[in-house]
C-alpha cells in the first residue's frame, strides 16, 4: 500500500553511515548503561539504554524507508512487526544464553545481534528467492531491520531494568526476566520498539518524502518510547533513575518534534492558517 512504488530511495546520509550509527550507537548505549550502572553500583545511568534504542531505531527506520520505497504490497507496518518478531526472538536468545551456558553477560547483545542478522538474512533470501518479491536490497535491508529490532529490544530492556543480567541464581537480584518479562512491560516495548522502526516511513511516505524529515520522526518517536519505558522503570529502579529517563526522553521528543515541524514547513509548498469553516450565517 506504499504510495511510492518503484525506484530506490535516495538523498541524505548514506545507508552505510546510518548503519554504523545504529550499530555502534545502539551497542554503546546498551553497554554504557549496564557497565556504568555496575561500576557505580547505582541505576542512574539506565537512560543511556534509551538513547541507544533511539539510535538503533533510527537505523531501522532508515532501512524500512529504503526497502519500502520499492513497494511491498502489504503496508509498511508489516515489516516493522517482522523486525520486532525476529528481534525479540534473537534478543531473548542472546541474553538468556549467557545464563544457560554461563558466559559473561556482556557477550549477550553481540550474540543476539549476530543471531538477528542470520535470521534476517534467511528471511530476506526467502522473500526474494522463494516468494519472488524481487526487491534488490531485500536481503541487506532484512538483516538491518532484524538487527535494529534486536538492538532496540535489548536497549529498552536495559532502560527498564538497568542491567543486562537476564536471569540470576540469586532470587533478590533485579533481572530482565523478573523486571521486564514477568511484569509484561515486554509487550509495551515490543509494540513501542516496532513504532520507532515502522512509524517514521509510514507517516512520511509519499513522492516528497525526504530522509531527514523521516528520521526526525524516528528520533521523536524514540523519545516518547524512552519516556514511557522510564514510567515503566518507576517500579523497578525507583524514582530518580526513572525520572532521569522520563525527562531526557521528553526533552528529546520536544526538540525533535519541533525540528520535524520545521522540516514539514520547509518541504510543504505553503503553510497558511485558514481559520475555522464559516458558519451558515456568515456565508449569507
Amino acid at each position, binding site marked *: *500500500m506504499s504510495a511510492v512504488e518503484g525506484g530506490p530511495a535516495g538523498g541524505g546520509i548514506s545507508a552505510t553511515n546510518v548503519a554504523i550509527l545504529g550499530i555502534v550507537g545502539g551497542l554503546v548505549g546498551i553497554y554504557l548503561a549496564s557497565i556504568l550502572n555496575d561500576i557505580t553500583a547505582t541505576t542512574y545511568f539506565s537512560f543511556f539504554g534509551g538513547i541507544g534504542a533511539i539510535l538503533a531505531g533510527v537505523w531501522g527506520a532508515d532501512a524500512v524507508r529504503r526497502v519500502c520505497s520499492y513497494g*511491498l*504490497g*502489504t*503496508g509498511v*507496518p*508489516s*515489516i516493522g*512487526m*517482522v523486525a*520486532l*518478531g*525476529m528481534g*525479540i*526472538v*534473537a534478543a*531473548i*536468545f542472546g541474553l*538468556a*544464553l549467557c*545464563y*544457560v*551456558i554461563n558466559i559473561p553477560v556482556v557477550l549477550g547483545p553481540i550474540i543476539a545481534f549476530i*543471531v538477528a542478522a542470520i*535470521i534476517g538474512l*534467511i*528471511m530476506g533470501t*526467502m*522473500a526474494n528467492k*522463494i*516468494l519472488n*518479491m524481487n526487491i534488490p536490497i531485500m536481503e541487506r535491508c532484512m538483516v538491518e531491520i532484524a538487527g535494529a529490532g534486536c538492538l532496540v529490544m535489548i536497549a529498552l530492556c536495559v532502560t527498564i531494568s538497568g542491567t543486562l543480567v537476564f*536471569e540470576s541464581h540469586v532470587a533478590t537480584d533485579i533481572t530482565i*526476566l*523478573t523486571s521486564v*518479562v*514477568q511484569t*509484561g512491560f*515486554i*509487550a509495551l516495548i*515490543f509494540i513501542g520498539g516496532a513504532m520507532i522502526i515502522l512509524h517514521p516511513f509510514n507517516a512520511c511516505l509519499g513522492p516528497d518524502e525526504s530522509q531527514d524529515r523521516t528520521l526526525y520522526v524516528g528520533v521523536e518517536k524514540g523519545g516518547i518510547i524512552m519516556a514511557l519505558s522510564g514510567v515503566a522503570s518507576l517500579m523497578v529502579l525507583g524514582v530518580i533513575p526513572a525520572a532521569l529517563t522520563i525527562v531526557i526522553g521528553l526533552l528529546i521528543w520536544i526538540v525533535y518534534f519541533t525540528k520535524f515541524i520545521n522540516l514539514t514547513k520547509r518541504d510543504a509548498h505553503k503553510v497558511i492558517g485558514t481559520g475555522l469553516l464559516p458558519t451558515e450565517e456568515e456565508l449569507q
Partner: protein
Amino acid sequence: MTDFISLFDPISIVLITIGGILIGMGVHFIPVGGAPAAMAQATGVGTGTVQLAAGAGLTGLISAGFMYHMLGNDGLTNIELIQVMVSGAVGAMIMIAVTMFIGQLVYVYCVGVPPVSAKVDKDPITGDIQDIYVSKGTEGHGIPTVSFVSGVIGGLLGGTGGSLIYAILMNAGYPESIRSIAGPSPEIVALAGIFSAGVFYVNAVVASYNIGGTIEGFHDPKFKRVPKAIICCLIASLLCAAIAVPIMGGLI
C-alpha cells in the same frame, strides 16, 4: 556444553514448526483487503494481513493460556494439549468472526455496498451471482459468504498453530521435574507468550508477503501460492523453534 545440546528437543522443535506452518496457512484464508478495502473498493476487511492475523492470533493465545492454566499445572497429557489447541482456535475464530461481522455491518449499512466478490462469478458456497453486483472500477466490496467462511477457517488454523507453539514452549519451560500444584512461575508464562507472539508475527508476515498483501479467501486465485508459504514458514519457524526451545528449557 553437552548439557546445552541436550536441550534441543527434536519433538518440540518439530511441533513448533508445524504450528508456524498452520499460522502461515491460516493467513491465506483470512479475507484481507488492505487499503482498497478500507475504501470499499476491494473485497475483504479493510486492514493489513498482519493486523488481522495478529489480532486473531493473540486472542487465540489468550484463550489458549486460559485453558492451559485450567489444565496444565500438572503437565499436559495429549488430550489436554488438544483441548488447549481447540480453546485457542475457538478464541481466534470468535475474534476474526466478530471483526468480519462488524466490518460487514459498516460496509452494508454505512458505506452502502453489497458484499460481493470480484474473483468468482458465483459464490462457491451459496451459489449467488456475484459479477453483476460489483461496482464499476472496484474489485468487489464487503465480505461475501465464501470469504466469511474462509476467514473463520483461517482463524481456526491460526489459533491452533499459535496455541500449539505456546503449549509446546510451556512444556519446554515447565518440565516434569519441577511440576508442582502451584503451577508454572509467571516469568515462564510471560516468556512463552512473548516468544509465541514473536514466532506468530514472523510467520504471518512471511505469508502476507506471499499473497502480496490482499486475498479474498480460498476461492481467490492467489490461494494457489500456499505451497511457497509453507516452505517459507517451515524454514522460518524451524529457525525460531531451534532458538526458543533450548532457551525455555535452559532457564529452569
